[in-house]
């Protein structure tokens, strides 16, 4: 095992590689300002994210973060401010995959746009922030990482400076984000006030001490703090009621950025929620202190989020907006992972992690298809998409795969992760949540199938010229589709990894 000889900080390599790539892009930009050499820029970004992906996969396979004889154990850095365990690596993989797909797709999408170098470096910086979120183990690092992910995102949403929608969306995103950050940081201060610690393990130790002793005085304070933290996570994961930014930001942003935000950013929001609530606030102790089971908050959020997302998506005319709401609905599904922790079941959290990985492919792919449609300039509504399959059968077949997988139809990956979520919810005794999952999935099939019907069955409203086949977008879409399909036979390792990672964190 070569890894033993590497210094401990090398465990952060995926994150450092992403940061390095961002810096490299700055260097390129300063050498040749306003460069429009898309090959070099997109190539660098892709290479950097693929390198981060490779290292993260390698670490996972080699057993970094895995406990026991064949692993290297959980690696804590900087007095536990950062931590590299299986869950951190798992989410770094998700972030790196989405970043790579987005970089490849942007090669075509950003053709002819200004600020190319800035675009890619912002993507890489945001990715760095998300990867850091995966590894953050203290409320301070979590906040910094969250802001590192958020600030470039605001800029990225409004990067189409000549486009009113893009600029407006960016501003709204920023304002809602600022509000949410304020709530979040206030929550941190309240938790600090109640416990006196910011490092997650230390908070847990202190809570136990408080529960054992006579620490009940700060129960309400602590509870409010925890609720405000939930608000911060809800913003990042686009959960109700902090979801208002999502439909407009996703619609206004360049499609690859929508894909990036709805997949990677959401996953990163979930990883900090998972880590904070499993590490810092052990359920029994916290319940004793604040008088209420915090999973109740997630049960409510999960049901409301999936219902609002899916219902609002059902009658949208605009495809991108439909996908934005569907992305909110999926945040609701993933929230089951936290809602189900009450019953002490790590299966359900593992299921949520699987869902986020599969989602990283199918949702990114779906948004990239929208990007492809924008690249063609066919329009934004369902009707505009009518009959696309006759001209672009491959991309439309991939779209059908994404849609059916998002709806949770076998044999695609989305079916399995949703199935595990469903069984997990039932095991955890959350029958209401399980029922909501089924009802919403059924409803979601309606609008997903509508899109498939539009491209495959309906006849075009207007005659179109022949459509180009941009290499980068096509490659990213086809790869995402293939992954959505082959994740099924290859689900074994994913399931094991996700369950192991969840088990380590929950235990």
């Amino acid at each position: 095992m070569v890894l033993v000889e590497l210094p401990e900080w090398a465990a952060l390599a995926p994150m450092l590689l992403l940061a390095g790539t961002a810096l490299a892009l700055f260097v390129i930009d300063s050498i040749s300002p306003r460069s429009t050499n898309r090959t070099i820029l997109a190539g660098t970004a892709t290479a950097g994210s693929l390198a981060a992906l490779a290292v993260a996969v390698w670490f996972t396979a080699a057993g970094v973060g895995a406990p026991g004889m064949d692993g290297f154990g959980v690696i804590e850095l900087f007095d536990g401010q950062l931590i590299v365990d299986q869950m951190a690596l798992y989410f770094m993989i998700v972030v790196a995959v989405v970043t790579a797909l987005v970089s490849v797709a942007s090669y075509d999408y950003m053709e002819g746009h200004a600020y190319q170098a800035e675009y890619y470096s912002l993507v890489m910086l945001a990715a760095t922030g998300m990867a850091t979120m995966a590894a953050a183990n203290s409320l301070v690092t979590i906040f910094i990482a969250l802001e590192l992910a958020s600030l470039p995102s605001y800029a990225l949403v409004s990067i189409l400076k000549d486009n009113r929608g893009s600029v407006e969306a960016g501003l709204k995103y920023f304002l809602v984000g600022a509000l949410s950050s304020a709530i979040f940081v206030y929550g941190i201060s309240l938790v600090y006030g109640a416990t006196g610690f910011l490092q997650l393990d230390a908070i847990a130790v202190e809570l136990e001490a408080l529960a054992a002793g006579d620490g009940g005085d700060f129960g309400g304070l602590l509870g409010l703090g925890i609720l405000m933290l939930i608000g911060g996570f809800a913003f990042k994961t686009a959960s109700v009621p902090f979801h208002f930014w999502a439909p407009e930001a996703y619609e206004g942003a360049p499609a690859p950025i929508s894909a990036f935000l709805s997949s990677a950013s959401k996953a990163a929001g979930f990883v900090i929620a998972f880590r904070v609530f499993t590490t810092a606030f052990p359920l029994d102790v916290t319940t004793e202190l604040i008088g209420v089971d915090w999973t109740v908050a997630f049960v409510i959020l999960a049901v409301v989020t999936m219902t609002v997302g899916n219902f609002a998506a059902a009658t949208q005319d605009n495809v991108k907006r439909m996908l934005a709401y569907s992305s909110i609905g999926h945040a609701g599904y993933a929230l089951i992972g936290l809602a189900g922790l009450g019953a002490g079941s790590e299966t359900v959290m593992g299921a949520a992690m699987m869902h986020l990985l599969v989602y990283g492919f199918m949702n990114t792919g779906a948004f990239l298809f929208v990007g492809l449609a924008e690249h063609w300039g066919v329009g934004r509504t369902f009707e505009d998409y009518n009959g696309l399959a006759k001209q672009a059968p491959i991309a439309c077949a991939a779209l059908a795969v994404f849609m059916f997988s998002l709806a949770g139809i076998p044999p695609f990956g989305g079916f399995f992760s949703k199935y595990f979520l469903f069984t997990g919810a039932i095991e955890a005794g959350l029958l209401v949540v399980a029922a909501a999952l089924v009802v919403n999935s059924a409803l979601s099939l309606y609008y997903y199938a509508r899109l498939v019907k539009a491209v495959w069955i309906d006849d075009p409203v207007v005659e179109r010229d022949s459509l180009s086949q941009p290499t980068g977008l096509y490659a990213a879409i086809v790869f995402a589709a293939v992954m959505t399909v082959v994740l099924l036979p290859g689900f074994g390792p994913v399931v094991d990894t996700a369950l192991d990672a969840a088990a380590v964190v929950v235990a």
Partner: protein
Amino acid sequence: MEGVFNYAPAIAVFPLVAFVVALAFGNYLPKKGAIPGIIATGGSLLLSALMLAAVASGEVYHETLYEWAIGDATSATDVTGIEFTFGILIDPLAALMLVIVSLVAFLVHVFSLGYMNAEGETGLPRYYAGLGLFTFSMLAFVYADNLLMAFMFFELVGLCSFLLIGFWFRTKSAPSAAKKAFLVTRFGDYFFLVGVVAIAATFGTLQFAGDDSFVAAAQTAIDDGTTLFGFDAQTWVTITGLLVLGGVLGKSAQFPFHTWLPDAMEGPTTVSALIHAATMVAAGVYLVARMFGYYALSPTALAIIAFVGGFTALFAATMGVVKDDIKQVLAYSTISQYGYMMLGLGVGGYVAGVFHLMNHAFFKALLFLGAGSVIVLMHHEQDMWKMGGLKEKAPVTYWTFLAGALALAGIIPFSGFWSKDEILYDAFIVGLEEPIILAAYAMGLVAVFFTGFYTFRMVFLTFHGEPRSDAAEDPHPIGWSIKAPLIVLGVLAVVAGAANLAPVYKLTGLEFTFLESWLDGEYGAIEGVTYGAYAELAHYDSGFIGTEETTVLIAAGLSLLLAFSGAGAAWKLYNVPEPVVYRDRLGRIGDVVEANYYQDEYQVWLAEGLTLPLSRAADRFDQTAIDGAVDGVSTASLFGSDRMKRLQTGIVTNYAALIVTGFIVLLLVLGYAGGWFI
């Protein structure tokens, strides 16, 4: 001789190859697929005869050839694991049946040259492919060594009959008849399938023979007094046996599933010969004989078989009396004759039942092919009232047909007499002790009269008297491909009875009971599937009037007397130059009989009057209640969706307000629950 069994699979595979060849290349072959069919069935016949010889030399064959699924379920009798296999069982019964089936199939193929090819039919490759598949299915069914395999080929036989009955699919009646045959037999097969599953679940095996057969397991269960599924073992054996019997009644056209068979006359006459003599209809009775050990365990099941058989024999015979179409008469005679076989098997007369199955195969194939020959002569006219006087113009057809008719009517010394008499004798001696069997016997006995009557009515109307139409004046010539099969079968119809001259043995002690010793395993057999073993299982009491000899004489005399009076009545009424229709003199009874006792009507009513309204009601419920609920859900969802969309106003201050409101609501809920505000 043992090595010869290695070729056993080829018996069934030959016709399968012929099927493929006829289907793929039929259009390019000189006789459109007839030649491969003849070669294949000829090969099967040869191999079957070899098997017969091998069994005669004391060998039997019981091998599992292919195991296609293994389950690890535990049966009700604690057998762990069940194997689903394809295997071959060749014992005296199977070897005999193989020869019968392949012989009839071979002759039918030869006959088809004259009946189909010479008449310029179209679609011949399809016809010969169907014949090939039919023969394949039946042969594989005959030597199946387990019930599931038997069921599969039983179904395949049903499919083939569907294809062949509907051969002239452009007419209106043939497809309808094919559908009817398929649906009615399928209705019976449904019970069969349930029975197969029940037997598999009970005993964990579906083998017909050997120590690990379900028959042996059932016997052990009865001996041990095991309780199976809440019933005592014997009751359960009766229930499962009767379920399987559902398939038998459907295929062998026993009451009340007989309605498909007369309609099946819409198929080519050669197909009718094959269906009635050796394949489809024979399959049902053969299955009872094949698993006779199982039925022998249940007196109730046997009594039901006997009674249904006796009733069907009489019931169908009366309907045969009033038919004007030569093929219809034969159709009802088939139903009636299979009723006799069921009666024979039901009273424990295993040898008698199988004997009649064999004789019937020969004389019924003969009669159908003879009828086919008549139809060719008559330029495809089937109404007997338009025939007459064919005796001189077609002597070969006449004399062979007459031999078949004598056998069918049960006139001594033709083959049908010996087997029918043995059945009635067996029923009689058991009936002396068991009233219900006596009733079955009485019906069988009365049916003898009607059999004699309708058979000779048919003969006289067709061949005797003056020609009653232009076609009968000037018949179409027939070739040797038609005559040769008739002669072969005609000879068999005369002499086949010699296989088992039971009355002669009982009266004189001369050992003319070759078939009985054959089925009793004196040459070679598998233990437990012999006549002797069955006789021990089925403990029927039997009585005699006086001595055995007098009983034999009384039984034979009675049936002969009735057969002769039936034939004589027909002679009196119809063997005249210008016969007249006597139907009107029957009055109301005649109407009822002519309408086939309204059997079709009530079955159609069951479908249209009962099932259809029920389905309509279910459909209406589905359309209104279920669909309404579904539509309501979707309307409500879309309405909700519309409301939900309006939350997104586009104004960022609204968003901030909503976020804070939402957050505060959550805070109030949790804070109230957690008691934070105290």
